[in-house]
């Protein structure tokens, strides 16, 4: 290890602040007044953010690529040595900044949003615990620490999805999320174990330095990367394990913003980007990721077209965007994926917080068919939401444009077909986002009972900050085409090894941008004509609709298919095993031994008829047999 960077040891403070916040807010839960918990929690995350910024400058100025901070020896059994160590490099710093920065904003927002909830203290405790786990996830210096955070965020997500635990459906959603994550986690931990057996270590530095010596496409590497991918698929809600994420919208909206949009679901992306060296050596896995990512991106985008719950729409768009990130990962453009994570965190958090503001204003109503005409009532929300919508649609100069365009260009480098499909997904995204936007803010208010009003400042300020980020976030990485230096990619270059790919000429690139932009323009106009000019409102749930529309609205009946294919047979298997195998076979076999003994007893008992002469005869016969046996056998 190179010489220690001064002050870098302060890195432990970053996760420590939210942990302290968690301890305070949870232990003193009953003593804190209404706003105190929120303020403490927000302060802690903000302190973390400040520390992260500080670390960022320290690391940059030091000229070193990374620093490892070993706190104590966690597990040591034989040659399995897992130190509790934190790794600070460019990748983890980016993630730390996202988590603490956006986290702090969302915490502050929550002070307003959760003001009237009776369990607000628990809420902030759990949010802080989540932040702690997430920081652990991105700062861990080995796969095991990453896994701690990985499970920790899953658990916090469980808690927060089921935060309003009176509603059984919410609890079910929480459980579903946890279990689906767990399926991925099993793959993940098996991957870690294989890593350990292959490299005799789970620490990033050692694994990667050894992996560089391995042959590309080695079967063990393919297996490991596939197993790790299973974990990422579970956590980042890709096909087939994505259905938990839309259901996870049962949680409070800030939770959706923080966990299910900005941070936790991108953990899978982070993990794969972190393991970029391994994935570069596993082309099969990369192809799997391309297919998975693209399929997810398009299918969930299609499903998003027919959703009417504002949060559900955003949830499907999140899954879809995560699909793009997987596509980027599969293409080997790891830094592009992380860049998209960053911009996505900005605009998706903004969208969710805006949605929260709307829901707040509408008195808890989430159905976009019942909204409308909020433009004048909620100007700040309107404006920020517009910025976010433009950003996610990929309109320049908003942040989403830069990150999405990067991915699309990479796709084109591999194959124009890939590009076309990805672009198709982006167009669908654009359409349903504007559908949502128009339905909510334009036209007339369709629900008379609600009295929409602009949210308090504590909620709008984070919106504004985030909209600034969404607006200018893309400038972090201006491609060479626009005279930039791809600063973000270069920054990450030290931590993440992206695959080299063929260059395409700048003329082609410009052409691609023009094509995509003109198509996006058409789509926006189309949406405008449909939902503003014609004031079309999506049909009510029960209304008759075409088969395809029903299939899409019901997300291809994936939940039902899962239920029919897995849940029901599983339940039946359980009943069968208990009622038939356990009780009728195994237990009755044991009881059968007892019954057999007593049956035999009652059979033999017949011989005991009480006649002494008979006994005597029997005795003599026995003695005779005995003697004969002794003498002649």
């Amino acid at each position: 290890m190179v010489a220690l960077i001064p002050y870098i040891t302060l890195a432990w403070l970053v996760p420590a602040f939210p942990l302290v916040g968690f301890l305070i807010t949870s232990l003193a839960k009953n003593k804190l007044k209404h706003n105190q918990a929120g303020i403490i929690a927000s302060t802690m995350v903000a302190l973390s953010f400040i520390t992260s910024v500080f670390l960022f400058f320290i690391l940059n100025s030091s000229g070193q690529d990374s620093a490892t901070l070993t706190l104590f020896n966690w597990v040591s059994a034989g040659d399995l040595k897992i130190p509790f160590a934190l790794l600070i490099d460019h990748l983890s710093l980016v993630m730390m900044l996202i988590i603490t920065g956006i986290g702090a904003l969302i915490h502050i927002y929550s002070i307003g949003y959760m003001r009237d909830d009776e369990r607000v203290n628990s809420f902030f405790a759990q949010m802080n615990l989540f932040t702690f786990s997430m920081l652990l996830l991105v700062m861990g210096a080995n796969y095991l620490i990453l896994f701690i955070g990985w499970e920790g965020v899953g658990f916090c997500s469980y808690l927060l999805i089921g935060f309003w635990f009176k509603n059984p459906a919410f609890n079910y959603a929480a459980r579903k999320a946890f279990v689906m994550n767990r399926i991925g986690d099993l793959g993940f931990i098996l991957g870690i174990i294989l890593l350990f057996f292959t490299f005799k270590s789970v620490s990033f530095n050692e694994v990667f330095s050894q992996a560089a010596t391995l042959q590309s496409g080695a079967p063990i590497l393919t297996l490991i990367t596939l197993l790790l991918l299973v974990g990422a698929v579970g956590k980042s809600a890709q096909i087939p394990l994505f259905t938990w994420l839309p259901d996870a919208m049962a949680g409070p909206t800030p939770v959706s913003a923080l966990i299910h949009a900005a941070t936790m679901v991108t953990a899978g992306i982070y993990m794969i980007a972190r393991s970029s060296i391994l994935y570069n050596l596993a082309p099969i896995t990369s192809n799997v990721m391309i297919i998975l990512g693209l399929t997810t991106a398009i299918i969930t985008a299609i499903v998003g077209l027919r959703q009417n719950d504002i949060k559900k729409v955003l949830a499907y768009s999140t899954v879809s965007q995560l699909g793009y990130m997987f596509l980027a990962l599969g293409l080997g453009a790891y830094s592009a994926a992380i860049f998209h994570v960053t911009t996505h965190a900005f605009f998706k958090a903004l969208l969710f917080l805006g949605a929260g503001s709307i829901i707040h204003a509408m008195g808890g109503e989430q159905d976009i068919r019942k909204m409308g005409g909020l433009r004048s009532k909620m100007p700040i929300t309107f404006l920020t939401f517009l910025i976010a919508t433009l950003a996610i649609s990929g309109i320049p100069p908003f942040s989403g444009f830069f990150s999405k365009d990067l991915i699309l260009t990479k796709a084109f480098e591999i194959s124009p077909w890939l590009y076309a499909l990805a672009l198709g997904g982006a167009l669908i995204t654009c359409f349903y986002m504007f559908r949502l936007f128009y339905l909510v803010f334009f036209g007339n208010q369709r629900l008379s009972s609600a009295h929409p009003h602009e949210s308090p400042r504590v909620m709008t300020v984070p919106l504004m900050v985030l909209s600034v980020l969404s607006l200018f976030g893309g400038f972090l990485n201006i491609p060479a085409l626009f005279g930039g230096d791809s600063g973000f990619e270069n920054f990450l270059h030290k931590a993440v090894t992206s695959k080299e790919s063929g260059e395409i000429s700048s003329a082609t690139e410009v052409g691609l941008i023009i094509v995509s932009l003109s198509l996006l323009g058409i789509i926006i106009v189309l949406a405008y004509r449909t939902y503003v000019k014609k004031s079309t409102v999506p049909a009510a749930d029960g209304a008759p609709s075409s088969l395809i529309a029903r299939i899409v609205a019901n997300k291809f009946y994936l939940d039902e298919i899962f239920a029919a294919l897995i849940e029901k047979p599983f339940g039946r298997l359980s009943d069968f095993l208990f009622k038939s195998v356990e009780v009728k076979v195994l237990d009755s076999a044991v009881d059968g031994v007892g019954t057999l003994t007593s049956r035999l007893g009652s059979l033999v008992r017949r011989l005991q008829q009480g006649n002494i002469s008979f006994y005597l005869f029997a005795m003599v016969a026995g003695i005779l047999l005995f003697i004969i046996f002794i003498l002649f056998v």
Partner: protein
Amino acid sequence: MILLIILLLPLVTGLGILFLRNACTVRIVALTSTIVNLLLTFVVMGSSPAATFSVEWNNLMGISFSLGFDGISLLMLLLTNLLFPFIILAGFKREQNQISVLNFLILLTQAALIGVFLSQNAFLFYIFWELTLIPIYFILLLWGGENSRAVTLKFFIYTLAGSLFLLIGIIYIVQLTPGVHSTDFSVLNQLHIPAATQIWLFWVLFIAFAIKMPIFPFHTWQPNTYTMASTQGVMILGGVMTKMGIYGALRFLFPMVPQGVLYWQNIVLVMCLIGVVYASVIAFRQTNLKRLIAFSSMAHISLMAAALFIYNYYAAQGLLFQVLTHGLTVVALFYMVQLIQDKTKTLELPQMGGLKHAAPKMAILLLMILLVSVALPFTAGFIGEFLIIIGLAKQSIWVALFGGTTMILGAIYMLYAYQRIMLGDKNASLKNTTDLVRLDYWMLIPLIAILFILGIYPQPILNLVEVSANTMQNLLTSATGIVTAMPH
């Protein structure tokens, strides 16, 4: 000498208790005795392994009354003495009949268990092994729930039948000893039994331990017994007595019939893995809380048994760590079950719900215990299961995959139970329910604290068992002549 004191203290206190009239005094005396025993255990842990106690008993049969310990028995001793204060404490402030007799029986069980874990002589081991059955039989029978007579009888006869095989096995091995027969482990471990003999002798010994643990087809006594048993009974049974099976296997199978173990390893492993999946799947649809936990416990034990028979270094470490974790978890979990039953007046999950409104603190503690049970990182459950899965993966990734399904299935049924008990809308029948009282905290907080501290800093326990795990591993490898790569 200190070992003798540890062994006899519960016995003497137990006998003394029989003459006490006041219920409160009885409990306090019993609790004090167990706490003193725990402190003595710590003293032993600090002392050298030479602190043995040995008296000739019957020269003709080579039986000696000798007590001693190594890392594994020390861990078991720690487990026993750590759990019994809590087991006694669980009875405080509770309506029970014949309190002095009950506490006497509990202390007698403790003494017998300590005897099992400390004896260095196969015959002595067997005596204590059987002695544990007598008090637990009465605890289950007299303080158990409905249908206790039939269920307890089945449990008793089942385990007794298993023990009979053990006795036969011991006698067979002892008569193989050269010269003047001896039943000391030190002598028996040096025996080189012919491989062909080991192959059948393995089953004779194995069945006793398989029933005790229990391993898959021999488990049918367990769910009913757990469901029927009183809280304290099930704590003893699930917390410590199931570990006797594991300990016995470590003491007998590996040193004495290592080739038999290797010969049957795959079949036994399949049995264990079937047990893991089978119990988890069944637990999924159980409506009785106790029965659900019984099956969950069986799934965990099966995983531990798989680790036992795969026997490599990681699995051994994980197994021994998990022994301690599982014991603590079971005690905490069943105390919770008792509380839930007190408050909701039922054990049927479909009839519960909304307890969190009335008892939020209880909900948090229950969730924490469940987290240990589903092996969330930073809890002791994770360390154990992680090491076990590493060990399983060393054999084959498929074995690890099957073993690892507990992670998923455990989460499914545990969270389902939690949801049914705690979450949901307010329940009218729980209007007068109170949250935890001080006694509950005294009971639960230390247990949970240990479980979390061990999850964050597991090293002391890992160090404790390391040497013994190595020794056992060496025995097995030297038996085959196959030298597997050994750490250190």
